[in-house]
């Protein structure tokens, strides 16, 4: 069995390289460390602490009153972002939930980048929006001219052939 040996300078360089690479390399092993246990989601209703099951979505929706939140969000969409905060339902202190995953209790403010609800008037045609000052669509057609030309050519051809006889 052969033994691998290296000069002292190379060993020092390898050690320095390992130490320098240790910090970024540590990020790859972070997943091995178990995260701290998250507190169980609870809801405070009328002063009583009620545990909330994180897997029971129907129960979560009921207890968080998501229907009211969705309705208020839809109303905010129709009224615009400026009034979104004004129409948001007041959030009582006893309705907050300790779990961060279910903490949303008010509609998020709208930003201009968010897609807007379709207008209630009906479908919007494809293509670009009407540009102010656009000319009328090009309805010009050469068909009448071609028809007249074809008729004239046919008559002329007939006349020439008849004249030959």
């Amino acid at each position, binding site marked *: 069995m052969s033994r691998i040996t290296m000069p002292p300078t190379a060993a020092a360089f390898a050690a320095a390289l390992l130490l320098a690479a240790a910090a970024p390399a540590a990020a790859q092993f972070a997943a091995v460390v178990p995260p701290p246990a998250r507190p169980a989601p609870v809801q405070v209703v009328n002063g009583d602490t009620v545990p909330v099951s994180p897997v029971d979505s129907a129960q979560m929706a009921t207890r968080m009153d998501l229907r009211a939140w969705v309705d208020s969000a839809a109303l905010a969409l129709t009224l615009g972002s400026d009034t979104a905060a004004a129409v948001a339902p007041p959030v009582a202190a006893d309705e907050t939930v300790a779990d961060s995953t279910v903490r949303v209790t008010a509609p998020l403010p709208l930003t201009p980048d968010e897609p807007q609800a*379709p*207008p209630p*008037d*009906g*479908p*919007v*045609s*494809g*293509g*670009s*929006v*009407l*540009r*102010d*000052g*656009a*000319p*009328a*669509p*090009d*309805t*010009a*057609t*050469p*068909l*009448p*001219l*071609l*028809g*007249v*030309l*074809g*008729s*004239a*050519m*046919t*008559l*002329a*051809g*007939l*006349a*020439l*052939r008849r*004249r*030959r006889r």
Partner: protein
Amino acid sequence: MTPAVHRLAGAILLFGGLGLLGAVGWRYADGALARDRARAEWAAMEARWAVESAQARAERPQGPVAPGTPVARVVIPRIGLDEVILEGVEATVLNAAPGHMPGTPMPGATGNSVISAHRDRHFHRLGQLAVGDTVRTFTPQGHRTWRITGRRIVGAGRPVLYDTPTATLTLTTCWPIRFIGPAPDRLLLVAEPVGS
């Protein structure tokens, strides 16, 4: 000219003219067939909406509309016009039916809805309309009666179409109606809704 030249020139003119007439006739016939298809499609859509409305689960089309899709129907009693409107103002669409200009709202919705057609086909009697005449439009969202409030003749490239804060209907076609060759002007009829 010798008789041979006469014969050759006559044959060229005759067959060339017949070819032109055939091409023009084919184009008109193709448009007529497409118009019939659009009418049948619109009738089927109306029947389907009626059934869905009766079953209280009507789903009106929303979102972008593909070019060539029937989107509305326009009726002008004074000139006996009753046409299905297709989406788009491309040559193939206008060959079949009046076209709804993309980017403008459907007739009856808020804004300036623009409908265009050729003067030698569906809008060949549009020039007979005057201020005060009635126009009716039917869309999946309902029907609306309009009264013509303006009549303008402008150059082909002039800026004439603007969005409006209220429901407006603009009908356009080429002008003069009787013109050999590409018409230089455009006839615009602007209508406002009658009632609410």
